């Protein structure tokens, strides 16, 4: 068996997705700055690490926990970085349309991300999704693409290309905190679910009869727990960092007058009609 570090696999559809992202970035995303280039290439790097690298191999064939690390990177890091890489004056009108739509109704973005995250972890769908991964199929693209899309949609109302169309930072804190609770609940379920809830990693382990690369000698139970915990604890810190970033942005923002024009009401917090 090849060393883990040689396990690089390039899925053609994933490469096509990356090429499309590069095209969109250079043709449609407006004024490019050092910050936007840094965000974009970091995001592309992370997408490639999670879809082609040994981390991907670990996630697909060895560890449930590595699989979850991939999910977290795509959803909570690569997605937001892609949104932040869009320049200040994007040429494509769709960016403005998306921003306007999500400014008025941020809950569809929240809900889409949460639904995508939860759906992939329904045990039946989870196990079936791996069956579709082998060979030349759409499944790798659907899997990684949907996670990335969830991350992009989720972060758009917070860090989208038009600052005036961001939701209020304090609304953003509630937006992130509620997502954090949802993510924690999913992590909690996976952590404490019975060992036979997710079959795929048990079967691959048995089929390879110990021949699989298990560099950290994790038992299936510990692996599943680590998978849930990755979703639960580090994610909570990512959301918290997002909340603190928003709070800092709010405190740093200039307000034209001292007064309630800068204040926020409960209805604003919930509906973002600032």
């Amino acid at each position: 068996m090849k060393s883990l570090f040689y396990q690089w696999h390039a899925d053609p559809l994933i490469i096509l997705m990356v090429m499309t992202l590069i095209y969109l970035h250079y043709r449609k995303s407006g004024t490019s700055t050092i910050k936007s280039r840094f965000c974009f290439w970091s995001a592309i790097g992370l997408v490639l690490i999670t879809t082609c690298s040994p981390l991907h191999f670990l996630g697909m064939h060895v560890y449930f926990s590595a699989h979850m690390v991939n999910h977290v990177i795509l959803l909570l890091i690569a997605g937001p970085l892609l949104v932040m890489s869009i320049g200040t004056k994007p040429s494509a009108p769709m960016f403005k349309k998306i921003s306007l739509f999500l400014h008025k109704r941020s809950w569809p973005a929240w809900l889409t991300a949460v639904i995508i995250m939860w759906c992939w972890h329904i045990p039946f769908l989870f196990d079936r999704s791996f069956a579709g991964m082998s060979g030349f199929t759409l499944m790798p693209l659907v899997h990684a693409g949907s996670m990335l899309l969830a991350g992009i949609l989720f972060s758009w109302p917070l860090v989208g290309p038009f600052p005036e169309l961001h939701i209020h930072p304090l609304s953003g804190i509630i937006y992130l905190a509620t997502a954090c609770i949802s993510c924690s609940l999913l992590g909690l379920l996976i952590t404490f679910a019975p060992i036979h809830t997710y079959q795929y990693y048990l079967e691959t382990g048995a089929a390879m009869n110990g021949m699989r690369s298990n560099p950290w000698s994790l038992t299936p139970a510990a692996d599943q727990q680590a998978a849930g915990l990755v979703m639960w604890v580090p994610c909570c810190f990512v959301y918290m960092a997002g909340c603190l970033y928003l709070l800092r942005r709010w405190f740093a923002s200039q307000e034209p007058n001292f007064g309630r024009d800068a204040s926020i009401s409960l209805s604003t917090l919930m509906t973002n009609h600032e």
Partner: protein
Amino acid sequence: MSDINFIPEPEEPIPSLSVSNNQGILQWISSVDHKQIGIMYLWLSVLFLVIAGIEILLVRLQLAIPNNHFLAPEVYNQLFTMHGTTMIFFVAMPAIFGFTTYLVPLMIGANDMAFPRLNAFSFWTTFFGGSLLYFSFLAGGAPDAGWFNYAPLNEYNYSSSPGIDYYCSGLLFAGIGTLTASVNFIVTILHYRVLPMSLKQLPLFVWMILINSFLVLAAFPSLNAALAMLLLDRQLHAHFFSAAGGGSAILWQHLFWLFGHPEVYIVILPIFGIFSEVFPVFSRKPIFGYGMVVGSGVAIALLAFGVWIHHMFATGLGNTVNSFFAASSLLIGIPTGVKIFNWLATMHGGAIRFSVSMLFAIAFLIEFTIGGLSGISFAIVPIDWQLTDTYYVVAHLHFVFIGGTLFGLLSGLFYWFPKMSGRLPDPRLSKWFFWLFVAGFNITFLVQHALGAMGMPRRVYTYPDLPGWGILNLISTIGAFLMAGSVGLLVFILVRAIKKGAVASPDAWDANTLEWTTSSPPGLKNFDRVIPVKSTRPFRDYKRPEDADWNRPEGARKHEGKYIPQNNPHGK
């Protein structure tokens, strides 16, 4: 119909206790005024403090010497359970909600809470919950499975007296009152601020209450659900927590600590708010890092849900789970540490006045840091395994609950008492109280760290005469009685001040926030008019317009080290 007065309004700011007209007891019972309800919350808390204090004095008497048989084991179990449950749910929570109910409308320039009747409902539901819990003594036995009431000890087979049923019902009522009060606080803060006050100008106490109220909304449903499930188990033979019936005993611990760890922050975040008012006023400086105090409060609230498993390291969840939660538990010390440094930096270079309120605040910095450090030591799993269920835990939790929460409440009490009563407590006796209480507290609980490290388990009704155990327990008991004596002195100070204390001026401490702009005690509608709000210290701006915060150059505001102390407004 129109001339019928359904709810008699108070003619005096603080009505008497007369029973012969509608301006006495009847007025208090039917009141929907936030100030009266706040005061009732505080007296409820004092009442339960005395009851729970007597319970623990009996426990300490039992533990004063080895092999003692002053109390029977069953009675001992009931007493420590009721002590813990009462202190958390019917002393700390009502005291915090008392200050909040009284002060939030005043600090934001409002006339009352958003929902005055809901406010009264919250108080009376809490009162009813506490009464129901204590009715268990008459109904056949108090709850006896500890304040966190672990399964399977809470199941009918192990505790067949009705005590735990009363525990469930009492806490359910109190929990409902807590939730409704939190909804009321959130709506009041977001919708009823005086017109020019933006959220960036909110007093930090109000900020902490806002964050705290969201935390309550997220945490209490878990407890309420667990209590309902336990009642079903006990009354209708459901099997949520019974392993024999296919349930899970560990599920109770998860549900309880999913509530319980945030609860630890629920009883400390408002205290951080109190100190964020006390330190600037008595240091005569603005708070250092207003945004950091808010930000660390938000961080604490969010992390509260990512660390609760550290209460369950000894349950055998496995090394993987323990490792993650050990790391996250170590990290949660950071935002609290940030706040400690905020307050230290606020004091630095200030013109400090050592009032009793400030003395409690300074003592808090020391005692709470000791409690925090012993807490961090529990994040290291092997230490937790060694020390769990020993007196080290008892010492730790009392250092954070007393050295943190209670010191904060006492600091707040001495700070706002002149506003609430219009009277000043005797300063000499108050300082006596401070020193006696702090001495009693340290004598009682410092030695318990050693007892725990020596292996003395908690919740045992007696212990063998092992080397050192007897003398350390005796010291602890002496300290407990010293604390009890000082609490008696506190009640005397308060009652004497209310009856014949020196009259307090409306602005007793040369303070910064809106509650000090009105009379002491405030009239029914709180304010005739509210002064302009242009910074976080509107009253100071009003008193010193030439040195107002909003009028100062940006650079001076950024470099707070160059700040001119408040007692020297012209910089001479």
